């Protein structure tokens, strides 16, 4: 099943390779991966979506946690979490369809970020299902080009979460 892992890693050369190496050495294919610096410039936050059989999930997380550059690993799969993705898509729209197209973009709370005659670049964010529905809709206007950012996930702030977090923060401040 698809597992969503959130990692805090040291922002050092090779750190990404070490993490993806644990996955690729076991023959897992990464569905999506995002990495960027945190508020602490020495650290990066990664979100990985990877297809892993259920029985291996806990082991995988521990084997990633064992890496020296990895500060924290959380398996978000079963925890309440917020997950968003950004897409950019370019759509060619005929004059006739223009109005309907722009209405659709508005309904999905997407934004036109670039336009040239007959061609629009649209930015949309949301959960995967919403974006899939949006793409389905956009396809009806003609050929589309698409870039997806991959999932960004953050655990929801529940009571237990906050408790764990405050404990965690004593060790790691981000």
């Amino acid at each position, binding site marked *: 099943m698809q597992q969503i892992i959130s990692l805090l*890693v*040291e922002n050092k050369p*090779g750190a990404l*390779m070490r993490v993806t*190496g644990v996955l690729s050495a076991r023959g897992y294919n990464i569905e999506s991966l995002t990495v960027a610096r945190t508020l602490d410039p020495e650290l990066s936050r990664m979100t990985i979506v990877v297809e892993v059989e259920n029985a291996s999930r806990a*082991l995988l997380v*521990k084997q990633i946690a*064992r890496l020296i550059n990895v*500060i924290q690993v959380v398996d978000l799969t079963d925890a309440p979490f917020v997950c968003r993705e950004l897409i950019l898509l370019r759509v060619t729209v005929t004059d006739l369809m223009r109005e309907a197209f722009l209405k659709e973009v508005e309904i999905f709370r997407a934004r036109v970020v670039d336009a040239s005659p007959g061609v629009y670049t649209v930015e949309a964010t949301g959960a995967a299902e919403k974006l899939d529905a949006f793409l389905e809709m956009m396809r009806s206007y003609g050929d589309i080009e698409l870039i997806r950012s991959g999932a960004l996930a953050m655990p929801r702030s529940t009571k237990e979460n906050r408790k764990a977090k405050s404990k965690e923060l004593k060790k790691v401040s981000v």
Partner: protein
Amino acid sequence: MLMNGARLVLEALTKEGCEVVFGYPGGANMPIYDALYEHPIRHILMRHEENACFAAEGYARSTGKVGVCFATSGPGATNLVTGLVDSLMDSIPVVAITGQVPKHLIGRDAFQEADVFGITRSCTKHNYLVKDINDLARSIHEAFHIASTGRPGPVLIDVTKDVLNAKTTYHAPGPIHLRGYKVSLEGHSGQIKRAAEMIWGAERPYVYAGGGIVSSGASAELREFVELLEAPVAETVMGLGSLPSEHPYCINMLGMHGSYAANQGVSHCDLIVALGVRFDDRVTGRLEAFAPHAKVVHVDIDPAEIGKNRRPDLPIVGDLKHVLRRLNKLLRETRAADGAVNAASRRRWLDQIHAWQSEHPLSYTSSDSEIKPQFLVQQIDQVTQGRHIVAVDVGQHQMWAAQYVRFNRPRLWLNSGGLGAMGFGLPAAIGAQLGNPDQLVVALLGDGGFQMSLPELSTIASYGLPIKIVIMNNGYLGMVRQWQELFYSRRYSSVELDCFPECEKLAAAFGMKGRTIDKPRQVAAALQEAIDEPGPFLLNVKVSPEENVYPMIPSGGAINEMILHQPQPVETTGD
């Protein structure tokens, strides 16, 4: 004092207590060799980089200190890979320092350039690529810290040649702090308390002890533990010697070639106390059939080992020395009350174990005409007496030695346990002899593994290392042949080693003494001759060619489905 990066490497190594390095020079690490020219660190020039890493392991395994090896860029570094994986699998502290092409040539397919940082990422506990002289000292000290703490392992530092030449001053850094590296030593108090309850609650407890006892230096604690508990102890191939072989509760090795008592014991026990072990497939056989009636207490310093193969009923993450000390204290306090409850059952259990031991002790059919390999190993045991170092290679002779040779303290038995790397034995013996100059070191090798490491005879001769090399020569790659006999209808494919050099001439070519024997009555005298010889000795022992290692659990079989004596064709493909 102003010095170059190469000199700094040696100063940092000295600061870490390193006295001897195994290595091989080349273009990219020449500055280090230049600095070595007038430095007190002793360098041993091996004949192959792979053997430099194995020798560093032999040093580390036998002394408990970090083993250090050097290699140059490209082929030098790639030759280290097998040794690095070997030390990773067996959790051996090794620091490898490799030269790399100058920074401005990286990525340009320069002469002897290889992506060593990338290649060794999965072969090491951690690795470094140092492109800035200001990172060099810190990287080396971090490497020693990482290699020797927690679950030990290999760390590689790849240093560009311009860094080795750059001028700097050396300041030893303060305490190492790594944000992503935390080792918990003590173990959770509540879990330890529950472990004590489970232990006294058991009627048939069984201790399964492995390499973690050796790494942690917890032999004394293990001994106290089993004496409090009065329980049988089976050791893994990495754990031999963690409890003295001669200890009455020691029931030898368990697993694929384990003793009948050890394998029956684990199949019938109601509690396994697993100490520094991995539930490796060579131990468990078919996992679902392993110890079906047992609850498991698993103590390990590496959280990723907990539940990897067998889900424990009680996990404890911690260093065995610390955890066992605390557990022993609890057991001492509760022994009179809680320990008495099942004392009678535990005594019956020990009787049962002893009955299994006498029912099927290790055995073989002896011979007056040919030297049985088991007989040879028993004779070696008579010489080493559980007190001397025995380095072995991989295969049948390794298993026979594990079965028959006694080890009354840890760090005497050197073998490639997890990786099973042929060619390990001879260079490991070199490392061990350098770490223990006054000890007797026996290198027991198969004729296959010996030929993989044969060039090291030159190293042994040139440093005058008094290693006693015993070749168990059956003219076959014995373990593969055994599997072909049992699982591939005796189709002996590419396992015959029909050309073996004449031993006396080979030894003489390296200026050492050698002898070939093929009669049982010659064995004791030849071993004595080897021991009496002040220098190295090459003893070639021709043994029965088609002897098999028993007991044996076919790969994928259940641990209580042992083949005890006779070869019986089994329908399974090995893996």
